[in-house]
């Protein structure tokens, strides 16, 4: 990918809200927990919101690092591997009870939600996203 800063931020919001939102909707009922489905949805969507909000800050870091690259690109693999640092940060905040999840989220459940959201959104931006939004890849990831 060859994102601009504006494109990064727009893509992050759009993809996590739309694609991430659908993934969380589908995955949450599969989690093993004693909490009600309503409480579980609250917890998983709070996790998703945390990934989104923190991700906007992360995008500034990535954009800075991208400036060291001659091509000013962001290799496909980077998009996958940055899930590690982002996931760890959200988990640390979750463990510290900073996030208003309402109910506790086990490590296993967090891993299922986060990894599935990350993988699906990563796959989506590296291919199918180009189909409906035909100008997106030529505008550094900007949708508007």
């Amino acid at each position, binding site marked *: *990918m*060859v*994102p*601009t800063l504006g*494109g990064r931020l727009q893509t992050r919001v759009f993809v996590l809200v739309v694609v991430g939102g659908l993934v969380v909707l589908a995955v949450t009922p599969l989690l093993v927990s004693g909490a009600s489905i309503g409480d579980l949805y609250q917890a998983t969507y709070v996790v998703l919101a945390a990934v989104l909000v923190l991700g906007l800050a992360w995008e500034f870091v990535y954009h800075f690092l*991208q*400036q*060291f690259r*001659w*091509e*000013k*690109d962001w*290799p*496909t*693999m980077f998009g*996958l591997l940055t899930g590690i640092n982002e996931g760890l940060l959200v988990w640390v905040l979750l463990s510290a009870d900073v996030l208003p999840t309402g109910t506790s989220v086990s490590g296993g459940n967090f891993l299922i939600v986060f990894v599935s959201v990350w993988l699906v959104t990563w796959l989506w931006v590296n*291919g*199918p996203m*180009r*189909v*409906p*939004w*035909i*100008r997106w*890849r*030529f*505008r*550094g990831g900007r949708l508007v």
Partner: protein
Amino acid sequence: MSGSETVRLPYAEAPAGHQAGGDSQGLSDELLATDVWTDELLERSGVPVVDVPFVSVGGGIGSFVTVDYLRIAGVPSSQIRVLTPLEYPWETYEYLTGVSQIPRGERLRSDSASTPDNIWGFPSYAVREAFAARSLRGSLAPLWQVLTEPIFADYYTPRAGQVFTALQREYDRIGYAEMCERGVVRTVRRRQGGGYFTILTRKSPSGGTRRVAFRGQFVHVAVGYPGLKYLPDLQDYRLRTGDHHRVVNAYEPHEHLYQELRSRQCTVVIRGGGIVASRILQRLIDDRDRYGTDVRIVHLFRTFISGSHGPSIFMRRRGGDGWAYQGFNYPKSAWGGQLKAKMRKLEGGDRAELYKLIGGTNTPHRRLWMRQLARGRSEGWYRTVTGEVEKVGASVDGKTLSLRVRNAEGVIELPADFIVDCTGLEADIAEHRVLKDLLDHCGAQRNPLGRLDVERSFEVRGMRSGNGRAYASGAATLGGYFPGVDTFLGLQISAQEICDDLARIGFCRRIGVWRSTSQWWRWVRNRRI
């Protein structure tokens, strides 16, 4: 410049300036001298007129991707004509890649998602190669490569044959053949009252020629490279001696060189530090390994790159062993990221400056080539020389060539059996008849790099004619608000801009989310449009 100074393509005609007298395509002097034609003027000339709203001149990949976009945007084939001397859009491209040692089975220098047969870039060539593979290893290899490029693997690039096969499928799907009119275009003129006339000269069945004027609201010019020039010293040698055997351009057929290498020890001098030099070197070394040729390679660099280079830590390109390394023709963000956004805002000298910064000859960093050249250096059959060639001549005994090279240490004489010019010097746009005509008669101007000046929408500046618009894409427009014009993806970006501009003025529909998705689904199922 004479025709002998540019590389000739199989179907090529004489370049600009070589028409007989003032009579281009047999048109009257009155017509040729007139910048804006009236319908009456053309009627008096007796040239039949065909009305079609959109005419694309050239018929190569630039025309093809533009027409592909328009067809997907809903323009019927009856509204489009492609005026071309080519049998199929990738004919010139396939010829040039073939002679410069990228036959169908070899890989191009093009990104996985640069798919001229598919405006969406999805599925990419790597994914298609994975699905078409007959083994698990064959499926995983391209996917692994796009996943790990360019950090742990070289950039994935498709095989030439895969691209040509895919282009053929799309060619059939959009009914491209029925839009083509075979012949040669040398003249385009603005029309009084709006639009343009484009004169096509066809060969008639009787052996003569027949002219037709296409009258349309829009004309699109995508004629490819104006021409490829020989290095002046090599041109001088060829003109003096008539020797076209030992001094060749990489874009000319030069198979005789490889054949002769199999029969005796030869020294080959390679000129240039770009992808073509890399490909020729690979062929020489592959032949050395396969047939046991005893080739000695002297690689002559005008500028020797010894390491990473650039004005700051934020603008440093890798380099080494003489080469500047870069995945593709331009830094990747030229096709959609920061560089594209930046260039779009620059004018005049600032734009030319940025072009200079990102320009310069370069080649991809490929592990195979690194290994081959390292072996050549250690075994002593590959060496580099830096300097400027002052003269090329025959040696004293006349059996070999001799290059006089000046560098920091002084002047050295290099003996050689063959010289391969891999510099890929491009001729001025005025060397091309149609482009010269646009500059001389249609109000077109030059951009900061001396090529055809186009707007961000790829409309040719100065050529608007009433409600008509003229567009251009491809190499002729290099130096505009978008770099990377002479590439697969660049042609698609140009096509998208043109299509969007045409949609704004109501010629076609703008491709929105729904149309894009539904048309992609038709593409997947190979449904004709």
